Structure formats: structure tokens, C-alpha cells
């Protein structure tokens, strides 16, 4: 019983980071109705740049963070221009395939620019661990959880209580209606992409700093976790991203503990496949809108 509770707690801690990745995916999908598969690799460009800046000038966490933000933003703008802004019209699948192609580029670009299997990333300041009733929660995990919560609250405020949020929701609802209502759809789409990049940078930095190192597999890892969390939570929903992230974290932790690492993958992908087929709207129960049916 204690194991079960401890696994759940570990799962929630990992799930907070997954939720942040899923939020990045869901922001882009929610507004543009297109998937950016190159989201994870874009984050990888940032964290590798951060690690490099840290190694060159021992910049510490602040310097590495600034470089991470810059790297993710540059990579994301590149992806947005080539895979999203340049492909007009009703072409969700073309954008998805194109972002996959850019994923190849970003991955090999990182491998060529930063050779070596693993790179050190500055770690978070030491935080006190929490123990209660036989359970254990790392200080790092608490920080990740707090940051994820803060990002979610800020995004909620931005989307539901600001003019830009109104424009985003208008675009998500109907691009045509938004355009005739004087919303600059290209600008809103571009800024949404940048917003997702910022959330992704926060997620990538927290994950890299918690682990203390990064590998060239980070891009694939981040895309898969974020994508799975978003799909099981429900596409284009903030609540779904949070639910999906936590669910993914808990399922992984329980499967790892009770069944082992090899079975964990099987459980996660099996669960995703079943979720997609039985529950296309995800756990948040996203209802299919007219825009979605066109895909």
C-alpha cells in the first residue's frame, strides 16, 4: 500500500514535467489545429545551447536558462516559418509531416554542433526533501510541481482574461470568423507558437536541471512524453494536458515498479492506443468541433 502511494507521488512529480510539455503541444494544436512534432527537438536545441554556454563561460543556472530560452525560441520560429506559416490552407497533415522533417534537421544539427553523448547541465539549488508518513518527495520535484502550477495559472489568466487570449480563442474557434473580426490571424498564430516555445523552454530547463545532464535522445523523449500526455488528456485542452501529464506519470511509475522497465513501455503505448480508439476526446472529453473534423 505504501509502495502504491509512493509510486503515485513519484508519478505525479514526473507527470508535472510531462504536463508542461503537453501544454506546449496543446497551445499550438488548440489555436492552429495542427501538431508540431518538432516541439521536443526545438527544446533540445535550447537545452544544448544552455549547456554549451554553461560549459564555455561557467554561466551557471541563470546564464544557461537565458541561452535555453533563446535556443528554443530560435528553433521554434524556424519551425513555425517553414512548417506552419508557409503551408497555408486546410493542411494539418502536411504541417505535421513537415515538422517531422524539420525534426530530422534539428536532431542532426544538434549532433553535429554539440558532439558527445551526454552534456552536463547546471543543477537546481539544493532544496530540502519532504518526508511524511513514510512517504518521500524530493525538493526538486516540489519545485517542478510549483513551477508547473504557476505556468498553468498564468496561462489560464492570459487565455481567459486578456485581449490576446480572446484573439487566441477566436482563432481556435474559427479562423474565418476571427479574420473578419479584424484579428490578425498570422500574428496570433506566430505569437502562440512563441508562447508554446517559452513553456517548452521552462519544461526543458527544469527537466535538464533535475537530471543534471542531457543526451541527444532528449528531443525524441520530450516529443513522445508531451504528445502522449496531450493525446490521452484531450487535444487542445489545458485541463487535458494537466490530466494527461499526471496520468502518464502515474501509469509509468506504477508499471515500472510492478512490471519492470521493458513492460513500462508496452503498458504506456498500449494505454495510448486504447485511449485514442476508445476515447478520442481524451480524459478532458474535448468535443469534436467543426475544425477538428476537417483534419
Amino acid at each position, binding site marked *: 500500500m505504501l509502495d502504491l502511494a509512493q509510486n503515485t507521488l513519484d508519478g505525479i512529480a514526473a507527470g508535472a514535467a510531462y504536463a508542461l510539455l503537453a501544454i506546449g503541444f496543446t497551445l499550438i494544436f488548440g489555436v492552429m489545429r495542427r501538431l508540431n512534432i518538432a516541439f521536443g527537438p526545438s527544446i533540445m536545441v535550447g537545452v544544448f545551447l544552455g549547456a554549451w554556454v554553461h560549459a564555455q563561460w561557467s554561466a551557471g543556472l541563470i546564464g544557461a536558462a537565458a541561452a535555453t530560452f533563446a535556443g528554443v525560441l530560435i528553433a521554434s520560429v524556424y519551425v513555425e516559418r517553414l512548417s506552419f506559416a508557409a503551408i497555408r490552407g486546410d493542411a494539418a497533415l502536411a504541417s505535421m509531416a*513537415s515538422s517531422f522533417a524539420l525534426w*530530422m534537421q534539428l536532431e542532426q544539427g544538434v549532433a*553535429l554542433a554539440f558532439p558527445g553523448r551526454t552534456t552536463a547541465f547546471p543543477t537546481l539549488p539544493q532544496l530540502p526533501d519532504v518526508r511524511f508518513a513514510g512517504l518521500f518527495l524530493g525538493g526538486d520535484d516540489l519545485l517542478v510541481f510549483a513551477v508547473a502550477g504557476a505556468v498553468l495559472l498564468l496561462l489560464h489568466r492570459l487565455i481567459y482574461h486578456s485581449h490576446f487570449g480572446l484573439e487566441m480563442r477566436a482563432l481556435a474557434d474559427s479562423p474565418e470568423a476571427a479574420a473578419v473580426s479584424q484579428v490578425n490571424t498570422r500574428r496570433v498564430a506566430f505569437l502562440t507558437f512563441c508562447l508554446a516555445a517559452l513553456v517548452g523552454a521552462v519544461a526543458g530547463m527544469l527537466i535538464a536541471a533535475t537530471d543534471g545532464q542531457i543526451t541527444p535522445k532528449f528531443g525524441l523523449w520530450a516529443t513522445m512524453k508531451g504528445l502522449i500526455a496531450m493525446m490521452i488528456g484531450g487535444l487542445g485542452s489545458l485541463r487535458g494536458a494537466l490530466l494527461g501529464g499526471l496520468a502518464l506519470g502515474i501509469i509509468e511509475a506504477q508499471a515500472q515498479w510492478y512490471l519492470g522497465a521493458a513492460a513500462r513501455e508496452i503498458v504506456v*503505448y*498500449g494505454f495510448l492506443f486504447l485511449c485514442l480508439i476508445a476515447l478520442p476526446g481524451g480524459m478532458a472529453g474535448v468535443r469534436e468541433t467543426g475544425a477538428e473534423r476537417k483534419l
Partner: protein
Amino acid sequence: MDPFLISVLSNIGLFSFLALSAWILLIGGEISFGQQAYFAIGAYASGIASALWVWPFAVAVLWGTVLGAGVGALVAWPAARLSGVHYAIATLAFAELTRASLNVFRYQRDVEGYLTGPDGANGFRDIRWVYEAGIEPGPNLTIIALSLAGVIALIGLAARLNVMAQLRMVGEDPILAAMQGVRVLRWKIGAGAAAGGLAGLGGGLYAHLATYIEPAQFSVMTGVHAVAYGLIGGLGTALGPILGVLIDIGLLESLRALAAYRMIVFGGLVAIILILRPRGILDETLVAKVRSWVRR
């Protein structure tokens, strides 16, 4: 022939099966990032059949093809009801599920003094049919080329019988197709089965050429490449995806100077072609122009 050229041509032939498999689904209006799963199923099934059950080569490969088609239909049956993005991710999930399952799949036994069979993540060694039958790389290439020619001829026949036209209709506008009396769901399941069978056939041939297969070979990137071949080569004709394979493996992988930047060049090429020619180099318009020019 030069051994290097033979191996390049064999690879081109084998990946053409995977590319054609993804292309059939593209024609039917779906993107699948999971065709590598059927490639893996075909490779493992026919490898087991020939190495462990000592079946004849042709029967073993046919068994891999049939199993690929069956599983393809089974996956397409629920997945075809989903929207495009859900379909793509569902196929991706199924492929990763297959790869993860093969990582723990152990089925070994003693065949004539050798312990052989799939050994989880360590892969499946000694699919020895090529050695035992004394098949050189040259004749092996002939087998691959003849199989590929047979598949292309079959697709050509399907085009004559208006099968491809109906599939294109389903892909272009499922609602309009349904109003014309086309059974959209059946066509999508059929396309899934055909695509699974094609990938299974390629996988079976691949297992017997490589003699060693492992789950890590059937990763997401393999499936993404398969889709990309059709997208750059063109959706207008079955030669489109093969042109895509030729560009990637024939040009980029084989030229030493380009090998280090292969993914950057290939990725950029795909992205640019998707902007300039959304239906690929050999798209429907070009194919129709060439046809009318040939008829004149």
C-alpha cells in the same frame, strides 16, 4: 556487379516496399507513422518460419505478408474511424507498442544444433536461409527486384480496374465519396490491409537478406522516412515513393560527402517540397500531363 552497388540497390528495393506501403495510405487520405510495425512483423514472422519451423523461403515470406496484412486490417478497423491526426498518432502508438513488445519477445529453440530465434532486445540472429540455399547477393537482389516489379504491376492492374481511382476519391473527400455510394470505411480498412501486407512482404525479404534483425531497427524514424518518401516523390504514381527512396538512399546515403549532413539535406528537401509541391514531385497533374503526351 560491384558489391557496394548491389547492397545499395538491395536497400533501395527493400525500402521501396515500406515507402509504397505508406504511399497507399497517403492516397487513401491518411498519414501513418507506423508502417515500420508491419515491416517488423513481416521480418520476425517470416524469419521464425524459415529459421525455426524450417519452412521453404517463399512460403515463409508469404506468411509474413499475410500476417502483416491481417494485423494491418485489424489496426485500421478501429483507427479508420478517427480523424487524421488521431490516426497518425494511433499508428505511431501501435508501432511503438510492437517495438516494445519485440523487446521482450523470446522464442528460441534448437534447430540442427544451433540455438536460434528472437531473443528480446538482443535481436534475432542467424536467419540462415541465404547461406543454406547458397544465394549470393546478386541473385538476392534479383529476388527483391522481381518482387518489387510484381507489386508495381499489381498496383498498375489495380489502377486499370479503377481501384486506385476509388481509393483516391476516399482520400480526397470521404463525405463526397460516401454520397457516391463508395463504402469509405471498407476502403480504409482495405488500404490498411494492403499497406500492412506490402510492408510485411518487404520485412520478410529484409530479414532474409540481413540475416539479423533487432527491434531497434524498427523505430519511429524508419516510419517517418517511409512517409517522407511518398511525400517528396509524389502521390500521382507508384513510382513516386520509389523516386523518394532513390533520392534518400541512392543519393544522400551513398554519397560520402553528403552522408554526415544526410538528415539535414533530406529534412530540408521534404520541408521545401511540401511548400512548393504539396503532392510531391510526380504529382497527379504531372502524371496526367505525361499520360496525355504519351497517348498523342
